């Protein structure tokens, strides 16, 4: 099987994308990298951070650099599902009156679901069906979303009054949950310099939908040995309260990660391997993806919140506990 893009081209394009994004996004290199990984792995990203950290700007920049169709949906409590997916409207012309489907903002390569937790569950579920199935069914007709299709949703960890936290099943559909950190002092200064001048930085497209599809196809062809897959599986298993080797974990968790977590770990690890110029997946690729993959899949209970235990700290404990290669360690 020959792939449409060589690993070298993959590395070149991905580096170009990150460099181009770096023109606008100050710092946040890991965030940019993880977002790109999720996009190339074919997954959706939930960005969480306080307002003003550049979440929306990041998504817009991605759309511009990747030269993809982009739509933004500002989720509000009065938003209706049809406002996202589209609806059938009556149109009248010379022929007569008929029902036409008016596509919603979800019909784009890159959809920004801004403050997704402010919409009602009904709207959230409409979006999440599109995310999972990559189709939209309106009026009994199923319509395919464009390829590639990525949803980058943002949510605000504060101002939670009047919000509708995403249910676990819907959270699970996001490949990554990325926490947008505060910029450092130097980054803040740079942000100020770049955005308060006469001219804002212009982003040029580095790749198009075709390149993105080729890159995604290449990602899936990266070989991963059984023992590396087994490591990912052991990580996910260890996150489940009944099967975890961590004694403290059952006391803090309601639910562990689902099988989608393994898929997310493996796919994202493949992208990381290509980023590293390797032709195989290493243990470190899997462990590097553990935080964004497991962060939103470990459902903490009240005791965890009371003790100040976060899902990230539990993931750290998992990474410390689960040995990547027991065979090598035992010899």
């Amino acid at each position, binding site marked *: *099987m*020959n*792939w449409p893009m060589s*690993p070298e081209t993959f590395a070149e394009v991905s580096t170009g994308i990150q460099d181009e994004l770096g023109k606008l996004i100050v710092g946040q290199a890991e965030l940019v990298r993880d977002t790109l990984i999720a996009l190339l792995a074919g997954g959706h990203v939930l960005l969480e951070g306080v307002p003003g950290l550049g979440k929306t700007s990041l998504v817009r920049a991605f759309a511009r650099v990747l030269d993809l169709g982009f739509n933004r949906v500002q989720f509000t409590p009065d938003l209706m599902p049809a406002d996202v997916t589209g609806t059938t409207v009556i149109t009248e012309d010379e022929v007569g009156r008929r029902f036409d489907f008016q596509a919603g903002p979800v019909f784009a390569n890159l959809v920004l679901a801004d403050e997704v937790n402010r919409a009602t569950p009904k709207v959230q579920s409409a979006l999440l069906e599109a995310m999972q199935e990559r189709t939209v069914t309106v009026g009994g007709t199923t319509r395919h979303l464009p390829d590639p299709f990525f949803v980058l949703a943002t949510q605000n960890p504060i101002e939670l009054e009047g919000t509708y936290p995403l249910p676990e099943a819907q959270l699970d559909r996001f490949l990554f949950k990325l926490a947008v950190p505060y910029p450092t002092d130097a980054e803040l200064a740079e942000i100020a310099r770049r955005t308060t001048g006469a001219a804002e930085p212009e982003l040029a497209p580095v790749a198009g939908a075709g390149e993105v599809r080729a890159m995604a196809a290449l990602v899936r*062809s*990266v*070989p*991963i*040995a*059984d*023992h*590396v897959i087994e490591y990912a599986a052991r990580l996910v298993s260890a996150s489940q309260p009944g099967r975890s080797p961590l004694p403290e974990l059952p006391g803090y968790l309601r639910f562990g990660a689902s099988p989608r977590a393994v898929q997310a770990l493996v796919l994202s690890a493949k992208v990381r391997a290509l980023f*590293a110029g*390797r*032709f*195989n*997946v*290493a*243990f*470190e690729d899997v462990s590097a993806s553990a935080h964004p993959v497991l962060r939103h899949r470990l459902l903490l209970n009240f005791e965890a919140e009371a003790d100040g235990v976060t899902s990230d700290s539990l993931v750290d404990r998992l990474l410390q506990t689960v040995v990547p*290669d027991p*065979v*090598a*360690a035992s*010899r």
Partner: protein
Amino acid sequence: MRANARHDPLRLLRRHAARVGILASTRFRPSRYLLRLRLAAARHPSRLWRETVQDAGPGLAGALLPLRRRADVDGAIRAALSALACWAGATALVVAWSKLSPVGGTLALAVALGAVSLLGAAAAWALSRPLPLEVARVADARFGLKERLASALFFAGARGVPDPSTMQRRLEEDAVERARQHRPAEAFPLQRHSRRAFVALTALATLAALAFTPNPQATTLARRSADRAVISEAKKAVASARRRLERAPHHGGKEGAQAEAALQRALVQLRKAGTPLQALTALSALESQLSSLPNLSAGEETAAAAAGAALAGTPGTAKLSRDLFAGDLKAAAADLRHLAQRVGELGAKEQRALAKALQQAAERAGANGAGSRFGPGQDQQQPNGGTTSSQGAFSPFTNALSQAAQALEAGKAGAASKYLGSAARGANASAASASLQQQLAAAEAALSNAQSKVASQAQADTSGRKGNLARGAAMKGGGEKGGSSSPRSATGNGQGKSGSFGSSRSVAGQGRGRGKGSGAGNKESKSKAGNGGGNGPAHKSGGGRSSAQVFVGGQPSGTEQVVGKRLANGYKVKTTNYRQVMPSFERTALQGLGSQVLSPADQDLVRNYFTSLGGQTTRGATTKKG
């Protein structure tokens, strides 16, 4: 497809078989497992390995080959060190235990443990030989190859992929290139075994320290070993005597059967004996039984000698006279047959002289063979008018001589010839009987020797002294020489029968009777001549240097009690309570009773003596001590 292959039982079996060097190929069949094992042992390991990863391609195989070899060496070192530590630890425990308790066979146990450890190490090494993929994973981890090698090998070895993608080819090239930048020793460094080596060396040092520490149980072990040796020697002596007796020509008789049964009983008891004392009991009983057997051949030889003397000077009987005098009854029988053939050729005068000589020979033989089968016996009237004796087998000899003399006197040469033939048969029967007696005598001599050693060992065990075997030998020598017996040996054997008994009895086969000596080193103890009729050398075993000291077994060293004639000479002596010495005296005496040549009456006397003392000892009577 690959997943299906991984769950294929045959493939799984092949993978496990590869652990012990069996080829992990699709050609592998379980039925050929053993054959392949043998082939594997004959091949070079690298050859096996190459075939195992033959699908990996030359580049990957070449990169993995030194790693696999190094992994095998690493596994061998690990197994060897583990086995060494286990062996040294286990052996140290055994050695330590042997110093706390008298455990024999420590060296053999150590050797056995070593063999088990070696086999275990070999088995562990064979079973834990890493698969090529495991080697690659270890190399990945140690070289920091980011799973390149293992991934390349995993996909290279995966069958059922018809068209390996370029990604896999690139992966293999990348893995090989990076793997070759490292030395195999980096993946399997010797330093990793430092902890194991430390444990093994510590165990070895402990073992060496224990091995070079003096063993407080050595004395006990040596004594036990000596016990086993003397018991084994006694068993051999009894078995040998039994074989000799079986080979004797006249062993089928009543005496032979009794002797054989006694020997068999003794052999059984000796096999059960765990201590020299038990062996001594068995041997003593055996000796008593053998001694109680009637010894008729000694009288026969005396009677034959007397007959030979009577025939001396008679024409035509010179050789017969010599043979009879020498006790060679077999030759004498031939001479008699010869004389019977030519008696008719003699003249009347010669016949009368021969008749007279034969009559005298018959009378002298009858007179000297009293108590033996040469004795006169009770004459019984025969149908033909003759008489015969109801005495033993040799009575026909004297009767036949007498009848031959009477026939010659009456001028009946034919009848005389017939009676001479009868005399020849009687002499022949006695010769066979004498042979059995010789074997019995030899057996008794051998048993006496063994008994002396066992008694000495038993005495050493009782007193806790060393040098038991040397003393036993000294005692035996003293007994044989009579006067030179040492006091210790005299009591050590419980006044046992001296070696002179055995030797004199064996000589008795030559016709000079046997002499019995008590063998005690006591001057007062004189030998008792047997039934040798004055011909047997009477042994005076106590005729040499006198000794008034008798060392009593069972006393602590340095506090040996001395009793003897000096008490009667007015020596100033210390006294000690009977109860302190009498039990040991009694035990020693009673143990030795069975080994002495004492008549039952004398044995009863000894028993009665101690029985009579028993009341006094309980009353706290005292004895004098010099």
